[in-house]
């Protein structure tokens, strides 16, 4: 019942009439399904903001190009549960005529949706999930991983910190697949550059109190405390690290998955000095700033995260490919076309998509500003370095994607 009402609410009518149907679009409509967290932990960083971004992408695309067909955007809440996500995906593909699913934070849900998409030969463009296995062993000809992944974050933040002299590490890790993957990838990056991992502690997920783990990290004497967790866990850990004077004591924190909305929740006073890697930041170009302004006006004053910007970019490129093909019927063919065409949009600029489904663009290593440096709400990051696209993501040869080995 909830799903249908959500679907009704999410309908977006197109700008053009459906008379001239020269192209072959299934049921005369291109239907884009935004599947993400609408009510839980990830609803701020994806949620309605991603839905808005998808609609905006359609609007901008159709302004610049002629859209003869109808394009609809629908959305649903997967509640971060793989079973809920899969049943929505099946329904969308089988009953509601959805052609492409976008966003899908929470890696476990993303794995499930990727399998179904392949089975139904549709298209899945992921912006919100992190697991790098999605373009590794689990890659699919119907899937593109758009915005970031655990390898890119671990490599960006880990390498940068070791290069700046942070050679000894201690990890505070969320005790589940994602946290362990993040720790593993970061530890590998640290060791590759001659750094050392002095220890780690696995905390239950979710955890409220981190003081005990922080004390253990303090006792290890490591220069860098890596936080291999996400969302409320990271916020709690950073907040309590400030309380226990970790940074004044000469140790530094490295947030391995931190979103703009997390910094907003922490406040600059607590978060200042934190290093993190992001795929996109609003205050980097006029086009991005304009997008952020419009986004904020429509989303209770919140600014867009990299995940939401990624949705915009992915939908734009999808529409280009579908128009170039003149059909939205064959998912694998569309994805092949998307990989063939270079990507170019106002938010992410120029980029490419690799055969394993990894979208490639520059990543940014940023430092959270001091309160005195910030000009106001959402002015949070100083750009430290740009990690060039070629170095930012895991080399294809190391991922173990079967699609690559074939060619």
């Amino acid at each position, binding site marked *: 019942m909830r799903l249908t009402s959500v679907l009704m609410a999410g309908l977006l009518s197109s700008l053009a009439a459906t008379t001239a149907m020269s192209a072959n679009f299934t049921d005369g409509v291109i239907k884009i399904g935004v599947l993400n967290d609408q009510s839980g932990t990830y609803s701020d960083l994806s949620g309605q903001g991603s839905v808005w971004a998808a609609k905006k992408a359609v609007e901008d695309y159709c302004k610049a190009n002629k859209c003869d067909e109808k394009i609809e955007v629908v959305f649903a809440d997967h509640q971060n549960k793989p079973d809920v996500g899969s049943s929505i995906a099946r329904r969308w593909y089988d009953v509601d005529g959805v052609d492409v699913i976008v966003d899908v934070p929470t890696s476990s849900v993303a794995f499930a949706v990727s399998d179904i998409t392949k089975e139904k030969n549709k298209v899945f463009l992921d912006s919100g999930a992190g697991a790098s296995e999605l373009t590794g062993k689990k890659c699919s000809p119907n899937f593109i991983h758009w915005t970031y992944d655990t390898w890119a974050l671990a490599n960006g933040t880990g390498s940068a910190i070791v290069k700046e002299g942070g050679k000894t590490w201690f990890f505070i890790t969320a005790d589940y697949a994602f946290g362990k993957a993040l720790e593993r990838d970061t530890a590998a990056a640290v060791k590759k550059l001659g750094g050392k991992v002095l220890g780690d502690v696995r905390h239950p997920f979710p955890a409220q109190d981190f003081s005990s783990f922080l004390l253990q990290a303090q006792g290890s004497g490591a220069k860098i405390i890596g936080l291999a967790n996400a969302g409320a866990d990271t916020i709690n850990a950073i907040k309590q690290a400030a*309380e226990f004077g970790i940074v004044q004591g000469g140790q530094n924190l490295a947030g391995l998955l931190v979103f703009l909305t997390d910094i907003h929740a922490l406040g600059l006073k607590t978060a200042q000095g934190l290093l993190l890697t992001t795929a996109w930041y609003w205050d980097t170009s006029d086009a991005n700033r304009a997008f952020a302004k419009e986004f904020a006006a429509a989303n209770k004053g919140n600014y867009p995260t990299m995940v939401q910007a990624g949705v915009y970019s992915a939908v734009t490129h999808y529409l280009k490919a579908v128009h170039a093909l003149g059909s939205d019927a064959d998912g694998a063919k569309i994805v092949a076309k998307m990989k063939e065409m270079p990507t170019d949009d106002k938010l992410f600029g120029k980029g490419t998509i690799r055969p394993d489904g990894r979208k490639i663009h520059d990543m940014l290593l940023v430092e959270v500003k001091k309160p005195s440096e910030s000009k106001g709400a959402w002015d949070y990051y100083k750009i430290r370095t740009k990690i060039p696209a070629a170095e930012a993501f895991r080399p294809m040869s190391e991922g173990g994607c079967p699609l690559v080995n074939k060619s």
Partner: protein
Amino acid sequence: MFELLGVPPQALLGQLLLGLINGAFYALLSLGLAVIFGLMNVINFTHGAQYMMGAFAAWMLLNYAGVPYWPALVLAPLIVGATGIVLERLLISRLYHLDHLYGLLLTFGLALIIEGLFRQQFGASGLPYDNPIPGGQNLGFMFLPWYRGWVVVFSFVVCMITWYVIEKTKLGSYLRAATERPDLVQAFGINVPRMITLTYGAGVALAALAGVLAAPIYTVNPTMGANLIIVVFAVVVIGGMGSIMGSIVTGFGVGVVEGLTKVFYPEASNTVIFVIMAIVLMVRPQGLFGTPR
């Protein structure tokens, strides 16, 4: 230096102290639950949401009215307590003649609604709240932030006052009598329904007080109470449903046990409380301090 199972005694001392501080939160929250259950026979599942409302009230007072932490420590519990009184009058009071289960369902549903409303308004990722007393003291074996020290001392005092009021004063004796025989107490000219309403308000205010105390150290977000309430219920069950002293002692005790688990086997630190609960239920179903009902 001698070591206990590979952990130096200084580190152990630090963890014990931290456990005691966490225990302060458990004690304060389970105390409110115990008061409400012990005197009203209502299993208040809205408690977690009311704890969250306390933290949000502090945030709102600061950001909308410029009221800093210290006055908020008094004001926020009063405000949230008042909402509790409204809730009791409008809804909960209609269920007293029914089974406990109905109260549980009602308060659980209310908790979900309240959390949903806050999420709708403030988003899911949370809000910042600054530490009013930053800094701390190096005790040799650990760094003790001033704020944590304040939390543990203040909670202990509040717990003791509550216990004293209910167990040792005339007002407390009225309350306890009203639980046993409301008709008789009413016959002596005491307004029992009003007393019950105020009791619920006081229990809710205790939850909100814990929320204000938590705001500077935990994330202030709509689900902060939902994560904690399950643990707190386990504390109440271990201590004995409705036992005031039981919930205080168990709250601090469970915090310490959890703290030790975080040293020896951190992965189990969320589970250990429930293991204790299961054992207590098997050996002594009425709880450590409870009396069989």
